[in-house]
């Protein structure tokens, strides 16, 4: 992780002096379950995009392409709301095992 600024180098009072900074905060490390998309079932209805609280559904030209895993916290709302059950939540440890593997 990059060196964090000291107390003299940050705005007082916890102020954040610009907008849109949530993108810089990578909350993906909080995740214990990862959503997996079955593209064969997906109808690109965009309900996952509507419901995702972290704006972590990647969409281009009206197509659901996958997830922004740097920000997806693994809450599972997309999987629950998907009307065609194209999304399943998989334990994050599975991917660890694979990558270690």
């Amino acid at each position, binding site marked *: 992780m990059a060196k964090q600024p*000291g*107390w003299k180098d*940050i705005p*007082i*009072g*916890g*102020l954040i002096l610009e*907008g849109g900074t949530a993108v810089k905060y990578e909350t993906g490390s909080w995740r214990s379950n990862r959503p997996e998309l079955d593209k064969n079932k997906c109808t690109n209805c965009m309900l996952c995009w509507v419901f995702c609280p972290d704006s972590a559904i990647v969409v281009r030209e009206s197509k659901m392409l996958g997830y922004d895993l740097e920000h997806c916290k693994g809450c599972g709302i997309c999987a629950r709301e998907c009307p065609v059950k194209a999304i399943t939540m998989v334990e994050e440890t599975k991917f660890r095992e694979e990558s270690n593997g």
Partner: protein
Amino acid sequence: MVKGKVVALDGAKAVAEAMRQMNPDVVAAYPITPQTEIVQTFSQFVADGKVDTEFIPVESEHAAMSACVGAAAAGGRVQTATTSAGMALMWEVLYVAASTRLPIVMHFVNRALSAPLNIHCDHSDSMGARDAGWIHLFAENAQEAYDNAIQSVRIAETCMLPVLHTQDGFIISHGVERLEILPDQTVKDFIGTYKAEHPLLDTDHPIMVGPVDLPDFYTEHKRQQVDAMEKAPQVIRRVGQEYGTLTGRTYGLVEPYKLDDAEVAIVVLGSTAGTSKVVVDALRGKGVRAGLLKLRAFRPFPAEEVVVSLKDKAAVAVLDRSMSFGGQGGPVFLETCAALYNGGGRARVINYIYGLGGRDTTPDQIERAFQALLNITTTGKAPALLNFLSVRE
């Protein structure tokens, strides 16, 4: 020097008058005895069109301080008033105001906390908030309450810390005294205009106020508050000097009274400082080298002044108008001892609890405290550290 107008006002009305002269952008407050007279008088000024203030009559003190936080974050000059249980209900938001570094001014009246229910003066209420991060000033009389009200705005906006300045409930808040009030224009010029550096309403420069602060940054924000409090004494002295040049009434963090050659001394804050001065004068008349250190600032605690003033005294009694149950004495006592210990003081220091729930504090009680100090100097033996000036056995 500006010529003030001599008036007869109680402390609450004097502060309401200062608020009228300062014409804050927003006042959010809820009535509670014995502070009600401040808000009531000020709301009449609002109703009569004598100020431009947006007055928010909220449903509770928690809401009052929350509205103040919002208005101050928006960039306004913001004030409120409360006492006792009202401050207790503000508790959570007191910390938010200080930690968000909002220069809110609270006109405060000291009153005991329940139970049993008591509406009279002691310092339990604001002393309980001593770690909330607010600058904390005490007044001896209505004149000082008026003067502190005006200086608080400058201190707050320079330090970017909220300031609460207090007056003793009923004793000052409802006791009519002679005092001098400044011309409106003088007050206006003294406080100047306030321009927030990062107002929330500046939509061209969007900011976020009050985000979640996780372990990776919280300590750094607390460290900044320590820094601000460390710089506050200089600001309080500078503003007090400037106010003195203007009015002839100069303020610092403490007021030593006949202390230079004193052998025994009392430390006290609030209205009892006035009573104690009378006792010091009487004892001096009898040849006793008695002195007094009045604290005006409790936060930041004037450790430097306390050490310089008291370290060579033979014996010192610290008067506390509140308790810290299970602690080793009242809050003023503990701070004084800590300052003297670290500053190399050799004084024997004892603690007297006095005036709880509005119990009258009379000159003969103060004299007894001095007598105890004189006994220490002659016998070398101190009584218990924690004593009461007036309690029935």
